[in-house]
């Protein structure tokens, strides 16, 4: 039974990471109504920013480097919007999609240009996990689960308790009406990018702490995050969490049964099935 519980834990862990990524995706989708294919690169750059600040010549310790790394990620996110997506606000979907793909290419190879394709680590010592009820969990993993929950609660509170968050929801509900209220939609959109970038940065750093850094780390997880988004309902924060965990569990439990070579096909399979069975349910919005 241990291995089953351990697999469930693994599924939840993977799911938390997917959920963090999915929230960022869903946020931008909610406000701007497009799929940001370059979100994975935002994640990856978040992790690399931290690496950059922890390495020479800065050599900051993790807690100090964290804040500037997230700030840099935010800067990148806002830059993405300012220079790529803003000029394309009124463009059609295919144009936007291709531009986002281009951006993903640019940023991924940018990281490879600077740091090379090889794996890197933050250089922390590897520790054995704690054993609880026969399953093992490391402090990093506890941090991942806690941080994901904190992030989701934080985003939830932000959206439901602060004026800025509420106005973002208003913008995502009905942009024109929001303008009519005098809500600064540009500000709200920018803020959405800030939050999405923070989520991406945190997610990237956690992923890198748990595993390694490499330029492709965002892209390979983005597809899963995307499946999670679709599963949980686009624009729905709790849905992103639920979708992430369902995908994570399905993958990890699935591997116990089918050939692990098809691990990635599981997320795709779920996504395709969802789209085919209940295409309307995926829009996730009432009305």
């Amino acid at each position, binding site marked *: 039974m241990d291995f089953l519980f351990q697999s469930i834990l693994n599924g939840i862990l993977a799911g938390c990471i997917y959920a963090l990524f999915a929230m960022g995706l869903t946020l931008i989708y909610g406000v701007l109504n497009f799929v940001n294919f370059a979100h994975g690169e935002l994640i990856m750059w978040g992790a690399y920013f931290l690496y950059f600040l922890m390495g020479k010549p800065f050599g900051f310790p993790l807690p100090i480097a964290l804040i500037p790394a997230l700030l840099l990620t935010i800067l990148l996110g806002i830059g993405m919007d300012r220079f790529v997506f803003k000029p*394309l606000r009124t463009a059609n*979907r295919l*144009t936007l999609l291709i531009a986002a793909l*281009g951006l993903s290419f*640019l940023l991924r190879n940018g990281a*490879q240009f600077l740091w090379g394709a090889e794996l890197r680590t933050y250089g922390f010592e590897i520790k054995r996990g704690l054993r609880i009820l026969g399953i093992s969990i490391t402090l990093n993993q506890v941090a991942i689960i806690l941080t994901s929950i904190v992030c989701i609660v934080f985003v939830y509170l932000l959206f439901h308790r602060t004026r800025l968050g509420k106005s973002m929801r208003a913008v995502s509900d009905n942009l024109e009406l929001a303008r009519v209220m005098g809500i600064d939609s540009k500000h709200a959109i920018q803020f959405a990018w800030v939050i999405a970038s923070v989520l991406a940065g945190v997610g990237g750093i956690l992923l890198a702490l748990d595993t390694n850094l490499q330029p492709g780390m965002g892209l390979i997880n983005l597809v899963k995050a995307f499946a999670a988004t679709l599963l949980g309902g686009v624009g729905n924060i709790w849905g992103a969490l639920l979708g992430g965990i369902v995908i994570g569990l399905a993958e990890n439990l699935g591997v116990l049964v089918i050939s692990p070579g098809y691990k990635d096909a599981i997320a795709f399979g779920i996504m395709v099935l969802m789209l085919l069975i209940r295409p309307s349910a995926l829009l996730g919005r009432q009305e």
Partner: protein
Amino acid sequence: MDLFLHLCVMIIIYIIFAMSLNLEVGYTGLFNFGHVAFFGISAYTSALLSLQQVPFELSLLIALAMAGLWGFLLSIPSLRLRGDYFGIVTLGFGEIIRMVFQNEVWFTKGPMGLPGIPKPILFSYRFATLSQYLLLTLGFAALTFLILRIILRSPFGRVLRAIREDEVAAEALGKNVFFFRIKSFVIGSLFAGLAGTLWGHYTTFISPGDFTLLETILVLLIVVLGGKGTEWGPVLGAFVLIFFQESLRFLRLPAEWTRYLAPLQQMIFGGLLIVLMIFRPEGLLKEKGRGSNAGN
């Protein structure tokens, strides 16, 4: 000269591949992000058959039929979806097909790939050398171009473009949008299959690594760069893009730079796409107004 011929063969195969995608993306407005699946399906079909000594004519036909059949099977459930969701389903399909190539070792030899695919013999003429193969691909490309031209300039093609422009209006004029889309998708898959078959018999070796999402993106770029919905767009796009990619080899930069150069090239690639989408989303060639050409 051999390199030149080689690049020409590659470019022409990509032209066929891009033309087939152009039919879907450019003319019918279907965002197919899993086009490489059909390229791969027929490359594998034809390779496996040829390795069993099936004559090229027959294995080509079966390969095309397989690509078309899978296109048909995929299109029935997925074409009911909205544009971008359709894109995601096809993307998923493409990846799953690649995983099948990779994992069904008993059938495809998995990651070992299939070596020794024979050069094609068509009506007892063997296309073995580079220039012979160039002729073969050129012939098929011309044939593809002509067939697609006849289809696209016909009333049938006119309906496809109408569906791209406004499916509701097309439906209100009595056109069965769903059927036309399926047909377009199947034809597109078929010609992607032709490109795949030619590819396999050219390199004589195929492996799952040849059929990644990156390939779909490359042809998509060719179509978009050249000018989607135009007859010559894929041709121009393939020339420009592959030329751009390969010309970097000739800059004779120090090998130490390669570590930087390869990502730099891809960065330029990505940047170019963004700039193109912002400043000239229609690509190099613009779709022009034209009357009906079928009648005269």
